[in-house]
């Protein structure tokens, strides 16, 4: 089985994020880069499928050179190899452009399963897995809290507002996962050492056969007009409970007309 896992390097989940004043893109220098948290679950799930069914796990990422750290982390968890799309002209690409680049690179490589985290912690759009499925004409099995592979059939539990749906498709298929699905492994020392020797295919826009006019900020389908930090919230009232905290809280809710 050939399995791909698409991962993204994002600013550290715990860091305050901001936009750049020059071009309104995410300031990726302001914080340490880490693998998007939900993508760790995608890597873990891919490795579990590989352990059960055999095959090969390939990491796919698009991002600046430093995103190589995220590739190495995924390799040290146990993936076999990676494809890293890196080109200055990717800068400012939106979801449509990103899905175009990823889908083009994945197409024709014979992947049976293409895993994603269900959203990135920076852009939080949750659209790229569906967009890649759309471009590749594949089934989408997204927001999975459980994945079962039997023969050529894949069944997931898709998280919904009221519980979950059981959704089934034949491979090849796109799968995105939520964090409930598993507990990602930590890279072992052996894994970290082994990752240094694993193959990483680095592709530029030209190498990947991509049309540069569809990529980058100039080609984006949306434009940021302006942005500003939300004005700091005026300090509220904080009281210490002396046995009547609940009553004081009720007074506040009454004053605000909630009760």
């Amino acid at each position, binding site marked *: 089985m050939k399995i791909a896992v698409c991962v993204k390097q994002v600013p550290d989940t715990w860091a305050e994020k901001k936009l750049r004043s020059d071009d309104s893109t995410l300031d990726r220098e302001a914080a340490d880069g880490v693998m998007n948290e939900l993508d760790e679950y995608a890597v873990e799930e891919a490795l579990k499928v590989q352990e059960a069914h055999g095959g090969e796990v390939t990491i796919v990422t698009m991002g600046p050179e430093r995103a190589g750290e995220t590739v190495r982390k995924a390799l040290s968890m146990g993936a076999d190899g990676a494809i890293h799309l890196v080109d200055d002209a990717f800068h400012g690409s939106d*979801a449509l452009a990103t899905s175009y680049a990823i889908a083009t690179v994945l197409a024709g490589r014979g992947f049976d399963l293409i895993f994603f985290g269900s959203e990135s912690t920076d852009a939080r759009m949750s659209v790229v897995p569906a*967009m890649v499925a*759309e471009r590749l004409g594949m089934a989408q099995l997204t927001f999975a809290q459980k994945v079962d592979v039997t023969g050529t059939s894949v069944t997931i539990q898709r998280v919904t507002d009221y519980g979950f749906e059981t959704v089934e498709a034949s491979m090849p298929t796109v799968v995105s996962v939520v964090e409930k699905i598993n507990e990602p492994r930590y890279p072992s020392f052996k894994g970290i050492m082994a990752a240094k020797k694993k193959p990483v295919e680095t592709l530029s826009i030209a190498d990947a056969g991509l049309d540069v006019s569809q990529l980058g900020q100039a080609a984006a389908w949306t434009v940021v007009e302006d942005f500003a930090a939300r004005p700091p919230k005026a300090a509220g009232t904080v009281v210490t409970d002396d046995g009547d905290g609940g009553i004081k809280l009720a007074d506040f809710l009454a004053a605000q007309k909630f*009760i």
Partner: protein
Amino acid sequence: MSEVLVVVEHADGSVKKVTSELLTLARTLGEPSAVWIGPGYSDAAAAVLGEFGAAKVYVADGAQYIDHPVAPRAELLASLVADQSPSAVLIASSADGKETAGRLAIKTNSGVITDAIGISAEGIATQSVFGGSTVVHSKVTKGTPIFTVRPNSTPPVPAAVTATRVDVSVAISEVAMKAKVTGRTVAQKDGRPDLSEAAIVVSGGRGVGAPEGFAVIEALADSLGAAVGASRAATDAGWYPHQYQVGQTGKTVSPQLYMANGISGAIQHRAGMQTSKTIVVVNKDPEAPLFELADFGVVGDLFKVVPQLTEEIKKRA
């Protein structure tokens, strides 16, 4: 005035509140037409959609829209966009809604903006990003602008018209039906409002300490007619079902009132609730960062404060 398509969110035949919000918002951009996808359209639904200004309701009631996730909906909408040339498409910011918007964007070669909290008459969307720390204004520059809009961001205002039904039948492609829904499992139906739509949300976190601890959170929620939420610490620990998680990896909510109990307020959680209109925090740790966001905070044991509050609300009702 140009036509604006509004995709109806409905459950068990009833129109969800977010749809009346989207219809209200759509009226600032043009003339709203509702799009009802799936079975269950009724006179009652038409009445609600008409009340909020939908003169036309496109109805596509085939089973394929519920038997196969997302892709058939996007095909239907792409066909409507091609036939009607609307000036914009508005969809609720649910998981399905965002994915539908993403696929539609590719099919129509159009830009998409997700999680808008407002849209101006010029089509400039407002988004609150990075856990609510930054406000961004942006617009679509190519194709038919597609917006997904967060629930609770526009107060619904009626503008009654008579909704005329227009049946739409689109042959859905084989490729859009590759994924098939084979079952639906309803987690405990708690009778409370939907978390993402609720006007009041009462949440519990690490401080709740155990699954049984959520009884006090639920009691408070029920005294207010509120939805129950939970922080990731609580859902990861298995104290409360995952679908109630509020935060960066869970739901984003923006209710009129958010009450956080025993939640310290890591960015993980703040990202999901920071744009709530009024925030109340109960925590025994005076240093809990969530107090910075509180309109009203109580430093104290939630197991004392919350039941007392619940009693007090019942007394005053």
